[in-house]
């Protein structure tokens, strides 16, 4: 969806302001949110793509107006409710009021090593890659209403395939519960002037990681 999360190239957000000696978490609840997200992901209730989709579907003013971890917490609540793992009545009460739904597995202290390792997103290809390294490709001009990982700023532009990253789970499918639908993933590099105009910095090149369905021959 063309949400405010798709920020590449937007103006008006001001300077980047690094915080000296920044702590890992700014409040204890931030760590709890991060850890809960991990622990719930471990149960197999939903994938990372659905977490992203939930945050992106927050109202634009909410997305922009809250901190990173508050956005996570809101997305977590939304998915817990959406998957029927908790009820709105329970959220209001602050306690469990009904028995839990069965989940694949529960993360215990013994599972921490696995829990801290990123998931594997590579899959065996079922077809050969359509594009080759060095080939010119155009990012499609698409505007899906659901989750996608093709940022707006490259849509319609021509770039060059620089790397083939293997065949990966396709977020656009996973986020709508339509299965993994693995697709070839390419690093496609664009000339900055093609994206930002002739007056822009001629030394800039920008790449995105683009799934094959995002691309067409140029």
């Amino acid at each position, binding site marked *: 969806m063309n949400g405010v999360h798709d*920020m*590449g*190239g937007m103006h008006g*957000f001001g*300077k*980047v*302001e*690094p915080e000296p000696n*920044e702590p*890992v978490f700014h*409040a204890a*609840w931030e760590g*709890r949110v*991060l*850890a*809960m997200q991990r*622990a*719930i992901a471990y*149960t197999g209730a939903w994938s990372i793509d659905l977490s992203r989709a939930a*945050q992106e579907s927050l109202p634009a003013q909410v997305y*922009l107006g809250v901190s990173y971890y*508050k956005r996570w*917490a809101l997305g977590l609540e939304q998915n*817990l409710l959406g998957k029927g*793992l*908790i009820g709105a009545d329970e959220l209001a009460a*602050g*306690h*469990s009021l009904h028995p*839990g*739904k069965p*989940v694949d597995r*529960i*993360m215990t*202290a013994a599972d*921490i*090593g696995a*829990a*801290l*390792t*990123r*998931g*594997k*997103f*590579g899959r065996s290809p079922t077809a050969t890659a359509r594009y080759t390294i060095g080939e010119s490709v155009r990012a499609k001009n698409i505007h899906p209403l659901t989750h996608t*990982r093709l940022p707006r*700023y490259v849509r319609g532009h021509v770039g060059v395939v620089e790397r083939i*990253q293997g065949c*990966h789970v396709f977020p656009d499918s996973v986020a709508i519960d339509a299965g993994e639908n693995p697709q070839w*993933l390419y*690093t496609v590099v664009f000339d900055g002037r093609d994206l*930002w105009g002739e007056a*822009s*910095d001629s*030394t800039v*090149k*920008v*790449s995105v*990681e*683009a799934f094959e369905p995002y691309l067409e021959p140029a």
Partner: protein
Amino acid sequence: MQLRVRAIETILTEKGYIDPAALDLIIEAFETRIGPHNGARVVARAWTDPAFRHRLIDDASTAVAELGVVGRVGDHLVAVENTPKRHNMIVCTLCSCYPWEVLGLPPVWYKSAPYRSRAVSDPRGVLADFGITLAPDTEIRVWDSTAETRFMVLPMRPAGTEGWSEERLAGLVTRDCMIGTGLPKRPEEVA
């Protein structure tokens, strides 16, 4: 927010979906063990061991795992190398994808709208926000982490560090230089 988050944790615990003790360990890992010091070890090794550098550029997941300084490494880690002609910079414009295993959790600025919006369109302006000025003809290559591939920058080894040990070199490697919004410290900065 604290009360709201505590309520969620209470419900999830009572329902048997999560074990709070496991949550404690995840938080502890990110507060103590998983941070940019891991990435610094990787960079320092690459600076001192050309064969490792080759393996890192070729397949960072395997190379970093073999180094053994970083716990477990997921698939799809990619190291991109700065050269005198090219400076690399990492961003995730769509959310905040970041190489957690080697750099820990991302700083607030990396997740912020100013960085995510401008890194791809005005990287020199962003570098200026960090006090960094590159030669005008240096190519700036921005990597937008729009999938599950994760990137880290292998910065150039600072001059004047000939003969330094890996450990001493690691002290020059900052988090920001592995994101591409900084440069390694110069020897005189740590003298």
